């Protein structure tokens, strides 16, 4: 039998009709997650064509992108400040009611960022195909699922048929040897990878992250890595499921239970790349050499160690434009650069372990004068857990804002924005021009680096603050 990659195994399990030279494969989708921003036009198409949602049991909606994070607007009866956002939220409520789609709505205790709640509920499982009208759907690949973002037209296709037409992508193995040093996180690792392979290094490929450094990561860390696959151009990133995966999923409400659990785990154990399977491309990296990283430019590939300098690229006008936008000089040291805003949140870094790490830095310290720090948990369940474990109080005592869950300042759709020209150290995934607000200057980093910047008011190596680092 031919040796197969993890990706090939999951792909083949979902071929309703295999591809031919003339036609793409019809690929079955096990789980369709949907939210308020990329679904309204898809529901309109169903309505226009008189179609139903084919599999309500495989469709789950929530609201996160344009949703307020202000407690008063969610629970206090205060109207949602942005009228267009309020309309979009109402539209999702109406669409879900009309078509019968399960919605974890505004005041539901299980609501949150779509890529945080899928795993949290145990709906994200190894070997599944998972799609959502959001590019960070790659997050779910951390469980050995094939998960990728789609556009609104395809959201409509999946609602109506539970299938997509797809050409089989190529495979890219990213093998990470060694082990991350103390105070160095999965976020630093994925930023280092994107810095090396570039923002188009994974285009046309599904990445499989492999090797001892990946196996040593928690599920939260693996999700951070897979989440940012799209920032390297890859629609999907995957990690083979193992004991860490099974321990995370066991007893989650939507995971298989009892005998079904045992059967599922036995099946999931087969989802590993066979010895001798061939990838289209391979890239290798040593985790031990990775330092805390921070971006300095306007895409996630423009990244350097916190202790490093802005590179010099004379004659590169695009590079010069990016630095001009960022207000940085070639050759400038990044450390000690003053910052005005710190955002700890997003589908990349707003799980409980991210908040724990940030709280280690904030504990017994204050947010520096002149800095606004916003901590936005990834879901209402993360929020509750952070409150129960005293992490929320650490943030509040430090002078940070503690919010309801949502995408928030990652993309500034809900009114949580960074002012023109301000520097924001952000645990999110994109530092594109204007991403956090028109003229905002985003510096992507780990929760530890973000928290360290908040308490010092300057770009800081977080290892100064982390126990054991």
């Amino acid at each position, binding site marked *: 039998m031919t040796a197969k990659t993890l990706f090939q195994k999951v792909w083949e399990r979902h071929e*309703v*009709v295999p591809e031919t*030279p*003339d*036609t*793409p494969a*019809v690929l*079955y989708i096990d789980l369709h997650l949907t939210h308020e*921003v*990329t679904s*309204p*036009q898809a529901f*309109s198409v169903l309505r226009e*064509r008189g179609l139903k949602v*084919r599999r309500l049991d495989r469709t789950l909606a929530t609201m996160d*992108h*344009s949703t307020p994070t202000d407690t008063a607007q969610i629970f206090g009866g205060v109207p949602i400040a*942005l009228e*267009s*956002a309020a309309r*979009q939220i109402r*539209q999702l409520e109406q669409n879900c009611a009309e078509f019968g789609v399960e919605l974890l709505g505004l005041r539901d205790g299980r609501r949150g960022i779509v890529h945080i709640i899928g795993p949290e509920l145990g709906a994200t499982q190894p070997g599944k195909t998972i799609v959502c*009208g*959001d*590019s960070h759907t790659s997050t779910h690949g951390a469980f050995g699922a094939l998960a990728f*973002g*789609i*556009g*609104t*037209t*395809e959201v*409509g*296709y999946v609602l*109506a*048929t*539970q*299938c*997509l*037409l797809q*050409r089989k992508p190529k495979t890219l193995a990213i093998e990470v040897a060694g082990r991350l040093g103390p105070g160095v996180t999965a976020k630093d690792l994925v930023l280092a990878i994107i810095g090396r392979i570039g*923002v*188009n290094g994974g*285009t*046309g490929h599904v990445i499989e992250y492999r090797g001892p450094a990946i196996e040593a990561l928690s599920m939260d860390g693996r999700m951070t890595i897979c989440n940012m696959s*799209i920032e390297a*151009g890859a*629609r999907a990133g995957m990690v083979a499921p193992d004991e860490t995966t099974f321990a995370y999923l066991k007893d989650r409400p939507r995971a298989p239970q009892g005998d079904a659990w045992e059967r599922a785990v036995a099946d999931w154990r087969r989802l590993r790349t066979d010895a001798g399977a061939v990838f289209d491309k391979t890239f290798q990296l040593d985790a031990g050499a990775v330092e805390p990283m921070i971006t300095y430019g306007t*895409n996630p590939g423009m990244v350097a160690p916190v202790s490093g300098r802005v590179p010099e690229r004379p004659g590169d006008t*695009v590079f010069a*434009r990016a630095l001009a936008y960022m207000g940085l000089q070639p050759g400038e040291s990044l450390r000690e650069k003053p910052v005005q805003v710190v955002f700890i949140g997003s589908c990349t870094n707003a799980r409980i372990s991210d908040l724990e790490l940030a709280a280690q830095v904030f504990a017994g310290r204050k947010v520096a004068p002149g800095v606004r720090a916003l901590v936005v948990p990834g879901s209402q369940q993360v929020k509750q857990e952070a409150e129960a474990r005293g992490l929320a109080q650490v943030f509040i005592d430090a002078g940070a804002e503690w919010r309801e869950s949502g995408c928030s300042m990652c*993309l*500034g*759709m809900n009114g949580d924005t960074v002012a023109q020209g301000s520097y924001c150290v952000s645990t999110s995934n*994109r530092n*594109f*021009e*204007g*991403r956090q607000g*028109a*003229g905002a200057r985003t510096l992507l980093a780990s929760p530890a680096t973000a928290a360290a910047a908040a308490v010092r008011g300057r770009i800081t190596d977080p290892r100064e603050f982390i126990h054991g680092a």
Partner: protein
Amino acid sequence: MDPITVIRSRTVVMPSTNIDTDQIIPARFLTTTTREGLGSALFADWRYDASGAPRTEFVLNRPEARGCAILVAGRNIGCGSSREHAPWALLDFGFRAVVSTEIADIFRNNSLKNGLLPVVVDEATHDWLLAHPGVELTIDLPSATLRLPDGREVEFPIEAFSRYCLMNGVDELGYLLGQSAAIEAYEGRTG
């Protein structure tokens, strides 16, 4: 979706590499529930200053950009978010094709679904196009070729199925709905 056979137009050139979908349409314009009228938000932060006045130096604000249907962009256009609002905004503005050496996967897919033709060309052709803004090009979909003003023809890759859909102005939904027997059989096998 209107059928596409030939697109003949002058080009607008935006040489920046990695033009992401947040530039094509910033997130604050995504709180819409329809797909119409997004052309006014196309490249909003590059087109308008903080007061909302057009930046006259920006290429889309120049008089020669009016009526152009072909956008020639630097390598890796469309990276980032999956927002289909990006091709919707480009189409609403009047573009019918995007030409580059690399086009990001999700944006490429979304463009094909809406009748915005993604045209990937070799570096030499791309360099020439970047250096000659405003030239008249002919993109012929049936033969998948792009014709330069000197008569030179350059082939571009396009998936046969996508080409069929674009040339006939049909979407893939009809095809997928037609697979219902296979889908039912699959569901019967797998639960």
